[in-house]
């Protein structure tokens, strides 16, 4: 392994600008004659808009325009859309309600977009929004998903009776029923997967600019997938033809899913820039992020696991109610269905599984993909059931897992996933060893001596990454293919530009992609630059989410690099006066096999451009290739996390005493970067399990609307983590990579809840397991003990 090759802990290329304050995030960019937008947002969760009087606001100092849903409709700007069609059990299409960029006739959650004021300065825009008089007809609201389908609940979209978006099912109900009839033991749990607010530290932002001379638009946006944003705004929303529209996502300060989607604010900024004839900029205030970024999770689930007398799993039955919020966001429909149910088999051979999911509207912010997207919810269901089953059967939770692991690959689950490779026992045993599980009992006694309770919890997670094989997702209802593109452009001096459709908002692509190309071409990393996030530079791309940049984005790069090498070999054959078949490329050098005749990569690049020494009718001059790589399967990263907690029974405060993660990500390009992804994922998972919870009151007001009320994980809530690997290569892509971005967030919540419930001796601990919740669980345990 070279100092910068695959597997090396190379320091990041991008860091120089970030540690010196020279990053260029959207809000750092200023355009000549720019104006500021500020939104009038609904203070009500559910209301009709009877009228909007904007006359006074329009006359306020500095105001250039006040636009409402009427203007959106008059310009025939299309609705925001949900790009993944999900069918109900009866075959009927999901009930997608109308979603204009600015509300028309009705608002459906607190923070919904009612009007926008565009003014010379932000102060002027804000002052004028106070003068936009909206006459609301307040309606009853429903915020709790469990109440959404009550006959008396408010009706949110006319075309969705009982607020039901779909009633979906995957699996074989009859087979599951038959297996349950044979079961010796059934473990049954009610589970709530708490609602989360993503909170990337950079708030969303957009700058729209229309250029009348060329009739073109440019949008700077905090997007994880600029090409998809361009496609959506042009083809679906109808802003303008795609080739007249450039989207730039410069440095982006974290996404975690929340910056995938097409939102009203950026739609309004780019549309309004033509109306006012000047650039329009908007940056979310954090309170706007809380109200109007797409939220995550929010499931209520009943899970039942059937086992035989030996602890062999026979069947799994899952019924989930999923909150989709007030409107269907861009990929929302797929999250609690196709990204959820196919992972319910976990790492286990379970012969029969059925999962029913009912998606409902409520008067809350739209809910969509948030780090892990469906997979943390699935992992929570299966890993809670397994842990509790072990406790009920008086078995070691590790042993129950061992008995049921999938060991033969490929393995077809009953819920569509085809696991391609893995060694679940290896990661479990390694984690057990690192966590010193065999001495847990001693540590527990030691804690007890200090008046503390100690618990241990496992999470043997699996996830599906690398979205996704295009024809497969097409059959499942996706509106787009999910391949990735790459272009390798070699300059005459042998420098290499890597243009990728992936987008980095913290994932370190400028480093890891360059490492890969450097390794492949045998040239130094500083001869390589990685370009992303600009639709005028990169021809197309599907962006970054679902841990796809490695397995899909890098695979596309490999294919394109190999094409460059193939062409360079043809050129080299002429330069070195040998047959093409005799040219070997290694360590940055083209050599005639068996001779000492060779030419460096840079020499061949120059020769390709000078084009003096080969027939250009046979070989075109230049050295530049592109590739579209479409995966053949999802990838299946898996591993085991073991968490140990210590709880103070007086206060209910949980302290994480130890955290071990052993992950199988297949090939790892840069372990330093991968470990960083794991740390961040675990922290978000710990946030979900211990601290974070989005709360709406019964009237649909957002109670947790700022960092005062929504508890983000801080440094002193977390331990340092022990991270290690086992490796099985992914057989479906050229590098053997599986993806690592979401694993921590998927594995962590259930490991922590398993540990806490183990410590308190009661299974009924909600997320977030605040000190109050844990204390209440302890009181239940006390009462139970007293009754016994």
């Amino acid at each position: 392994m070279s100092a910068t090759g695959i597997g090396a802990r190379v320091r990041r290329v991008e860091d120089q600008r970030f540690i010196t304050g020279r990053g260029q995030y959207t809000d750092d960019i200023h355009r000549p004659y720019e104006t500021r937008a500020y939104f009038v947002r609904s203070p009500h969760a559910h209301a009709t808009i009877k009228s909007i009087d904007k006359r006074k606001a329009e006359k306020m100092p500095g105001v250039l325009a006040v636009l409402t849903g009427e203007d959106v409709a008059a310009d025939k700007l299309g609705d925001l859309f949900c790009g993944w069609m999900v069918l109900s059990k009866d075959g009927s299409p999901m009930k997608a309600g109308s979603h204009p960029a600015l509300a028309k006739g009705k608002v459906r959650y607190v923070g919904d977009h009612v009007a926008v004021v565009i003014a010379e300065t932000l102060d002027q825009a804000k002052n004028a929004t106070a003068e936009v008089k909206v006459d609301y007809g307040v309606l009853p609201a429903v915020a709790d998903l469990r109440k959404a389908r009550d006959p008396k609940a408010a009706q949110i979209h006319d075309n969705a009776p009982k607020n039901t978006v779909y009633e979906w099912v995957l699996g074989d109900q009859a087979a599951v029923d038959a297996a349950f009839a044979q079961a010796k033991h059934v473990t049954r749990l009610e589970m709530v997967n708490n609602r989360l607010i993503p909170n990337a530290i950079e708030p969303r932002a957009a700058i729209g600019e229309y250029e009348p001379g060329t009739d073109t638009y440019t949008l700077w946006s905090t997007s994880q997938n600029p090409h998809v944003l361009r496609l959506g705004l042009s083809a679906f929303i109808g802003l303008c033809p795609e080739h007249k529209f450039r989207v730039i996502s410069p440095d982006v300060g974290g996404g975690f899913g929340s910056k995938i989607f097409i939102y009203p604010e950026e739609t309004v900024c780019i549309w309004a820039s033509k109306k006012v004839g000047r650039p329009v900029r908007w940056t979310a205030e954090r309170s706007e992020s809380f109200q109007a970024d797409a939220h995550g999770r929010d499931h209520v689930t009943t899970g039942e696991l059937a086992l035989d007398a030996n602890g062999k799993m026979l069947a799994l039955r899952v019924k989930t109610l999923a909150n989709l919020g007030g409107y269907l966001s861009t990929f929302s429909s797929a999250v609690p269905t196709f990204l959820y149910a196919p992972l319910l088999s976990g790492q286990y051979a379970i012969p029969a599984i059925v999962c029913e999911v009912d998606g409902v509207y409520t008067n809350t912010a739209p809910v969509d993909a948030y780090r892990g997207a469906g997979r943390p919810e699935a992992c929570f269901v299966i890993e809670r059931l397994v842990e509790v089953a072990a406790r009920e059967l008086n078995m070691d939770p590790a042993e129950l897992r061992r008995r049921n692991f999938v060991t033969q690959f490929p393995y077809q689950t009953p819920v569509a996933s085809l696991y391609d490779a893995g060694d679940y026992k290896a990661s479990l045993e390694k984690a057990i060893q690192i966590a010193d599980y065999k001495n847990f009992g001693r540590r527990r006694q030691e804690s007890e001596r200090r008046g503390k309770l100690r618990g241990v919890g496992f999470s043997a997670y699996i996830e599906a990454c690398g979205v996704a094989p295009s024809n497969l997702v097409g059959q499942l209802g996706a509106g787009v293919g999910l391949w990735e593109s790459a272009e390798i452009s070699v300059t005459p001096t042998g420098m290499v530009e890597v243009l990728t459709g992936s987008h980095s908002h913290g994932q370190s692509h400028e480093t890891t992609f360059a490492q890969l190309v450097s390794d492949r071409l045998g040239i130094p990393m500083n001869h390589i630059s990685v370009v992303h996030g600009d639709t005028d530079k990169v021809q197309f791309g599907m962006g970054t989410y679902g841990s796809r940049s490695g397995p899909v984005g890098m695979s596309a790069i490999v294919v394109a690099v190999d094409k460059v090498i193939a062409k360079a070999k043809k050129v080299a054959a002429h330069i070195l006066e040998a047959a093409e078949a005799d040219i070997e490329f290694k360590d940055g050098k083209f050599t005639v096999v068996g001779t000492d005749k060779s030419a460096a990569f840079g020499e061949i690049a120059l020769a390709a451009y000078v084009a003096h020494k080969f027939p250009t009718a046979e070989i075109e001059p230049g050295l530049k290739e592109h590739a579209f790589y479409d995966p053949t399967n999802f990838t299946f990263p898996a591993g085991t996390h073991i968490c140990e907690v210590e709880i103070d029974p007086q206060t209910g405060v949980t302290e994480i005493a130890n955290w071990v993660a052993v992950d199988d990500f297949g090939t790892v390009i840069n372990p330093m970067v991968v470990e960083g992804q794991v740390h961040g994922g675990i922290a978000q998972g710990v946030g979900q399990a211990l601290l974070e919870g989005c709360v709406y009151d019964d009237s649909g007001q957002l109670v947790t609307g700022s960092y005062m009320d929504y508890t983000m994980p801080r440094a002193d809530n977390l331990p340092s983590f022990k991270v290690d690997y086992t490796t099985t290569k992914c057989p479906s892509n050229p590098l053997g990579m599986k993806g690592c971005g979401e694993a921590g967030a998927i594995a962590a919540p259930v490991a922590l809840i398993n540990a806490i419930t183990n410590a308190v001796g009661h299974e009924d601990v909600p997320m977030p397991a605040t000190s109050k919740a844990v204390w209440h669980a302890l009181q239940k345990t006390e009462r139970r003990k007293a009754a016994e």
Partner: protein
Amino acid sequence: MPTVTMTVNGRNVSVDVEPHTLLVQALREKLRLTGTHVGCDTSQCGACVVHVNGRAIKSCTMLAVQAQGADVITIEGLANGSKLHPMQEAFRDNHGLQCGFCTPGMIMSAVDIVKRKGNDLDEHTIREELEGNLCRCTGYHNIVKAIAAGAKAMKSGARA
């Protein structure tokens, strides 16, 4: 419109501001020092930390006019020319950043922690002292390592 005169990164500057303009707005929008970030509206994320008269301050909690006559250092002014501050180096060496958005505030806070708590910082102290800075990417693990290493490096000669 009041005028604020202050020293920013060693340069004397005068800027016209509204009475309610925040220091962070003056830095970002008037002086185009966009390394100082805004991540919240309740003074809790720490993305905006700068040094004012030698102390770490959340620049979103201070009016620009309050900085009259002050000596302000932002992330852009931390390095000594092209030579990075040891804390900046430590963040790179320890992968203490991912998206980089919290990073300027983290580094400015970290330098302040070292000034107040010394060069031998244990993990517990660092974690407690980071109470005012949010990071959503790193899980803090590598930030904690970076600060411990940066603190040590600051002792061995380089300017604080």
